[in-house]
C-alpha cells in the first residue's frame, strides 16, 4: 500500500531540500509518493533534475503561495 509523506524543507537553502528528500526517499518503499515543500528557488529546478537522473518518477512540481511542492514517486 503506497503512502504520501510530506517533507517540510521550507526556509532551508541548497542543497538542504535535496538532502531532506533523499533522506526520506531512502526510508520509503517502492511506490510511495513523497511531497517536498521548499522555498528555495534553486532547488525547484535542481530537485527534479536529481529525480530524473536517478530514475524516480516526478509527478508534479508547482509553486503555490510562494512554496514549491515537488511530488515524486519512489520507482526503485
Amino acid at each position, binding site marked *: 500500500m503506497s503512502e504520501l509523506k510530506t517533507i517540510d524543507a521550507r526556509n532551508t537553502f541548497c*542543497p*538542504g531540500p*535535496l*538532502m531532506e528528500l533523499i533522506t526520506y526517499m531512502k526510508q520509503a518503499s517502492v511506490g510511495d509518493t513523497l511531497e517536498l515543500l521548499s522555498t528555495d528557488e534553486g532547488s525547484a529546478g*535542481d530537485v527534479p533534475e*536529481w529525480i530524473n537522473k*536517478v530514475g524516480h518518477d516526478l509527478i508534479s512540481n508547482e509553486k503555490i503561495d510562494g512554496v514549491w511542492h515537488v511530488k515524486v514517486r519512489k*520507482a526503485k
Partner: protein
Amino acid sequence: MTGHIFTNFGGSVLAQKICIICVSGVREKLQVAAMIASVAAASGDEVTVFFSMNALQYFVKGQDREAPPEGNFGVLIEKHSGVPPFKQLFAFAADIGDAKLLPCSMALDLMGIKGTDLDPEFGPPTGLTSFLSDISGSQLFTF
C-alpha cells in the same frame, strides 16, 4: 561501494568519478566542496574527498573551531540557519552516497594526531601515491 549506490538510487551508466581536494580552511570553499560532494554522492557518482593543510582541522573529534569567512558571502552563510553546515554535508555524502573522505597522512603527522582522532566518517590516512592511484580518471575539483 558503487553497487550499493546503484541499489539505492537506481544508478546510471553516466556515473562519474569525482575527486575533490580541500586545502583551504575558509568557510566558503569548504561549503562549496561539501555541496558538490553531497549532491554528487547522492546522485550515484563515485566521490573521493582528500583533506589536507588548513581544511583538516575542523574534522578533529571534539574540536568546535568555526571556519572563518573569507568574505561577505561567508558571513551570509553564517547568518542563515537554513544553510546546511559543511560538516553535515560531508557526513551526508559519506553516509548516504558512500563518498570516501580521506585525510592526508602528511597533514596528520604535522598536526600530531592519528586518523582515529578524526570524525568517524573519515577513511584511512592516505599518502599521495595511493591517492593519485585512487583518483585516476576522475574529474578533479580543488578548494
